């Protein structure tokens, strides 16, 4: 335990003992497999297949972006329509609310109108007759006023 505590961080990065041997074996094994796989020299057209693959990948990328763009464009009207559909019920609800308010107001007006005319408003009828009498009186006074003028004219 003490030796582990006294180990510096640099030391802990360098494995020792059996673990170091196992790591060495692991390295040897990986090197061996890699050498076996790459022992044959690369053929002359070795990079052509990579270039072909790269082109295909580029085309796929372009195709994917084009599809995504087309999808977005085609979704726009649908989304717009969906937005309209969702906004319509609100308008309907608002209209219903307005109609209710209007009905209530109309009822209130009807009630007010259909109330019996109070007696204090009765002079309205006499006022009409008064206005008609005043108009006749006015015509009378006018005729009486015109009379002297006529007289003067005759003179």
């Amino acid at each position, binding site marked *: 335990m003490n030796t582990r505590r006294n180990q510096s*961080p640099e030391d*802990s*990065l360098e*494995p020792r*003992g*059996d*673990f170091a041997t*196992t*790591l060495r*074996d*692991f*390295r*040897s*094994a*990986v*090197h*061996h*497999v*890699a*050498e076996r*796989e*790459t022992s044959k*020299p*690369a053929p002359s057209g*070795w*990079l052509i*297949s*990579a*270039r072909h*693959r*790269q082109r295909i990948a580029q085309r796929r990328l372009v195709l994917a972006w084009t599809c995504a763009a087309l999808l977005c464009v085609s979704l726009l009207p649908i989304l717009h329509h969906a937005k309209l559909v969702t906004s319509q019920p609100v308008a309907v609800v608002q209209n219903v609310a307005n109609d209710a308010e209007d009905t209530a107001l109309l009822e209130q007006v009807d009630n007010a109108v259909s109330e019996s005319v109070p007696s204090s408003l009765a002079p309205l009828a006499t006022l009409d007759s008064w206005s008609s009498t005043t108009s006749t009186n006015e015509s009378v006074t006018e005729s009486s006023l015109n009379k002297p003028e006529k007289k003067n004219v005759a003179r």
Partner: protein
Amino acid sequence: MVSTELPPLARAESVLELADFDEVVRLYRPRIFRFLMASLADRDVAESLTQDCFLKAYNARHQFRGESSLGTWLTRIALNLVRDHLRSRRMRFWQRTRDTALDIVDISDWLPDGASSPEAICLQQERVKEIWQSVEKLSRQQRTVFILRFVEELELSEIAETTGMNTSTVKSHLYRALRIVRERATGNSGGEK
């Protein structure tokens, strides 16, 4: 064993070296393939990505300024390819079957001579298998640092240059990776000897 290490090259020499691309492929192909195979544990994918790596290097050969060694530059390209491949594999989660996945037995089958008895050879193979399984379970960064250190035998500064991390981050990843691998390896075999 074909040496993939070139003697230290001056900047101009390194750029000139890239001009003879067939020679570059001949020298560095085993190293890049080995790194990719150890990282992905898939022979065919490693081969495809090795091709992609050299194709990218060929296309970008004019951008290579010789600031790092050619091996570091190629390993960095391979590292990016591994990252992209793992990302796309995660996206294609329904394609989990790996027909070309490297058989661990294949790896651990071959061991350097020196074991005295069949029991010792068997034990050695078992330990290598456990190391391989533990490496596969490391996180991407831990695995990369581990492979670059213990398979490619790069110095910490070289690993930092290749991965773009600073040295202390490399140390921290390596420390964690080693701890995990040691724990798993010794835990399965009944304790470190």
